[in-house]
């Protein structure tokens, strides 16, 4: 991701966290498609999603659970993380919460599930994670989060590209 975009995102996120008490939801930036949840605490509100994505370095919104994925694309994300030895992460089953399911689509402006967040930043769905896995980017991104990919240990004696 371009550094300028990333910097802009961080400034925006930081501002949201410092948000003035009592700022009405209606002043939040408008998004096309899907209404904001009514009231200030709906599970699909921007604030609620923001809290979830910042809860842990690795956060996944999926169908089903890591123990029992209910969608092939969600399962692919779980399998990839498992290959890298990442078993400690936050997974949210959107099938259990329709408000959350719509809320994360609004938040990331991304129409499908699963959704993967690293360090609070949306990185993409199953296709992108698979490519990151295949081209070595995922190992690097995990390293930035202080997570050592299990694949590095597997390749210890090999030349890295």
């Amino acid at each position, binding site marked *: 991701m371009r550094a300028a975009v990333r910097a802009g995102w961080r400034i925006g996120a930081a501002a949201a966290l410092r948000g003035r008490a009592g700022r009405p939801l209606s002043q939040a930036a408008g998004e096309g498609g899907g209404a904001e949840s009514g009231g200030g605490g709906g599970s699909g509100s921007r604030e609620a999603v923001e809290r979830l994505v910042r809860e842990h370095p690795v956060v996944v919104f999926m169908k089903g659970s890591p123990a029992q994925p209910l969608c092939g694309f969600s399962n692919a994300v779980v399998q990839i993380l498992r290959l890298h030895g990442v078993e400690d992460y936050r997974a949210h089953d959107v099938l259990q919460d329709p408000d959350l399911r719509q809320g994360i689509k609004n938040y990331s402006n991304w129409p*499908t599930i699963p959704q993967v967040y690293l360090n609070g930043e949306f990185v993409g769905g199953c296709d992108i994670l698979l490519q990151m896995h295949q081209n070595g980017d995922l190992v690097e991104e995990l390293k930035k989060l202080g997570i050592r990919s299990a694949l590095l240990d597997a390749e210890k004696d090999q030349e890295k590209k």
Partner: protein
Amino acid sequence: ATPLSCSASPMRGPLLAAAGGAMPGAGGALARTIRAKLTAALQPTYLEVRDDSSRHGGPPGAETHFGVLVVSGRFAGLPLLQRHRLVHEALRAELAGPLHALQVTARTPEQWQSDPRVPPAPPCLGGSKRDP
């Protein structure tokens, strides 16, 4: 375990309207719409549109789950996320409607030339049966 490695075999599922002209009678209305919109938005040098709906519990021709391979110079210099967003933007109306799942492979012509493999669609695990 789900195999994650790409195979060199062609994309599975009915291959609709490969570059060079549509096969007669190939693809439903949504497939044709997807093809038309991606062509208009991204001027691909190569485009494959694959209806995976039958692999996700729908009847053949259900047109709910698609995979697209888009090869376009428009992707040059763009990270994956941006490339996928361009594809989504072109299909915004469909994604808000009947298009339930969309697998995307987005490559520049140079990348496609050096790597013509496409990841297969992961097997369905029934999740879409719980959709409204």
